[in-house]
């Protein structure tokens, strides 16, 4: 068994298991922790697939920033109480599970039929990741995808401003809150 196969068969069950565990955790923080585990396994898969840059970005962005933000918000809002297990929507759970399984089955069948056991070029690191993954990726990114890159940077600025505007407590609301407190 090649190392990458070992990695796959070790981490794939962890990945699926952590995802399923996230699904069943009643506590939001625990769910977030399992999701972090899942993200780590994905990072490992990126490494296996010849994308060390994305491996690092995955950890920095998802594990390091996004999930911290999630934890931060959960703790800030104090919504870490146990979630009620009563489902008020009739048929929601069975339908959701059936549909989820159906989707997975469909993709399974499609991948089996169309991809088979294809593995891609054998010497990926030599032919594609020329001069290292980061360098090769930057060549693609700053040549072929330069305009999307710039647009995305604008999107980030917009998102930052949007977050600031949304998170800001307006003066009016503070006054209202004060009024409510007095009453």
């Amino acid at each position, binding site marked *: 068994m090649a190392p990458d196969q070992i990695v796959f068969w070790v981490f794939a069950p962890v990945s699926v298991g952590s995802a399923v565990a996230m699904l069943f955790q009643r506590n939001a923080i625990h769910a977030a922790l399992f999701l972090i585990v899942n993200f780590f396994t994905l990072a490992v898969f990126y490494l296996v697939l010849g994308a060390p840059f994305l491996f690092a970005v995955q950890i920095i962005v998802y594990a390091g920033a996004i999930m911290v933000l999630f934890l931060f918000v959960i703790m800030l809002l104090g919504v870490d109480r146990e979630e009620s297990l009563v489902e008020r*929507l009739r048929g*929601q759970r069975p*339908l*959701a599970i059936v*549909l*989820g399984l*159906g*989707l997975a089955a*469909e*993709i399974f*069948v*499609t991948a089996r*039929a*169309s991809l088979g056991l294809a593995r891609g070029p054998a010497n990926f690191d030599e032919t594609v990741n020329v001069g290292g993954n980061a360098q090769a990726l930057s060549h693609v990114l700053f040549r072929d995808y330069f305009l999307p890159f710039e647009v995305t940077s604008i999107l980030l600025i917009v998102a930052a401003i949007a977050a600031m505007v949304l998170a800001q407590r307006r003066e009016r609301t503070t006054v209202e809150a004060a009024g409510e407190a007095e009453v």
Partner: protein
Amino acid sequence: MLRSVWLVPALPLAGAAINLFAGKRLGRWAGILASGLMVVAFALALGVLAYLLRLPGNERLVVRHLGDWISVGSFRVAADLRVDPLSVTMMLVVTGVGAVIHVYSIGYMDGDPRYGRFFSYMNLFCFFMLTLVLAQNFLLLYLGWEGVGLCSYLLIGFWFERPLAASAAKKAFVVTRIGDTFMLVGIALVFLRLGSLDFSAVLRPSIESVQPSGVFTVIALLLFAGAVGKSAQVPLHTWLPDAMEGPTPVSALIHAATMVTAGVYLVARTHVFFEISGVALTVVLVIGLVTAVYAATCALGQDDLKRVLAYSTISQLGYMFFALGLKAYAAALFLLVTHAFYKALLFLSAGSVMHGLGGETDLKRMGALRRAMPFTAAMFGVGALAIAGVPPLSGYFAKDQILEVANRSGYLIAWLVALAGAFLSALYISRLMFLAFFGQDRTERAAHESPPVMTVPLALLAVGAVFGGVLGLSVTSGRLQGFLAPVLGELTEGAGGLPTAVLSVISVLAALAGIAVGWLVYGSGKVDWVALRVRFAGVHEFLAHGWYVDDVYSTSLVAPGKAGAAFLASAVDQRVIDGCVNGVGQLFQWAASRGRRLQTGLVRNYGLAFLVGVVLIFVYVGVRLS
């Protein structure tokens, strides 16, 4: 000269615009401006005629391109003016008689509160009429056609305060519209079947080979239906007598001299179609003849001065169509021209009488007016003699030629009927003459002669009525006939028939007989015509109501139509249509009241629907791929 031919219609249009927007400020100058423009237009028309006369006979066709009007794909309509003998003749009639009537109107309409607007409408009418006759294609002709219809409506209803005038305007508009609709279909058919609306492309004898003759029959009949409506022929004639509610100059200009002759012009212009068809020509002949005699009998029963003249006009127009049906187009045009003179003269004289009597039109309240208004009486007499067909006045030549052609055509019965019509014409016009200007004075107020601004035009028209015959002394070799020949073709002499001299004598005798009978009954004093009328009350009523055609229409068409409309309005519209609309609304309300339950506001429901969609799309894609 031909470069400025566009000015002929443009000048009245400018006058119409000026008078419409500034008529009130211009005051009396409105009439002078309108009349002056018409005089200038007439002068220009004379110039065009002079130019045309200098050209060789077979080259007398000039098309003046003003620009493109409509250009959609292969459908192209140009704003072209056609100058040929026929259009020039019509143009001269319109501008000449029009100018005279405009001048007359200065006096007649004096003091009217809408003085400026009257001249605006009149000018606008002249513009549309000139567009009609100068058009080089069917669509432009149709524009003019509808335009004169609009002006006719506006002018008949000029005194819209009177309910009768308003309803008469409405009636004229609606009835002529029946014919117009057929005509529009005919024009569409021309484009569909013949591929063009341009006269030069369509109106040539070789067009015969393009389509079977049945198509031409249909086209000709549809166009003729328009002519029937516009020219007040049976069965669409009922609007014209009622149209006399308009001001008298309007009756003279529109409902005697110009607009009603548009039908004659149309048939003459498109005679190619009629000749190819043959059947259509017979229809024209029959309709014309029936109208001529029928309207003459009706004229006998009228007590209203202007209604007599209206029926007389219908009758005369019937003669014109009769002539057209006999392929004697030039003769029809000759009658058209002379009729324009003497019928305008008669109407204006009648207007003068009305002016003198304060608007009175009832013949029973007239009589012996020759003493109070001798000049008017003399002018009216000239017109009456002309229409009766007494030589050497213009009417004699025109009518005599038509009878001559009829006699030679082989339709002996038609000739006899037409002769009877001629007799009746002389009879009703002499009845009118004697009742109004001779016998006892039955007026209720003192009559007076009209001012010179009205009488001078009368004199001018009288000159035309008397000497108009010079234009076409002979049916084959007259000047007008020769002038029109390049457009309308030479008249083919029919074989047989009576000699020309004999025919002339017969028609003169018929006219004199009519006058004699008229004198005997109404002028001599030997017959008590009032008692006669009481005795034959039924006949009189029958004639007075125009054979009850109107009443038949009312009961057979209008009343069922109204009932149907009422049914549609109360039952169909309120129950079915409104019901459908309300039902649709209620259906959607019901559906929305059920369907809005879908909008639960629960994100997870929406998400579920989302996922269902994703799964189904995958199924679809999978099926497509496999």
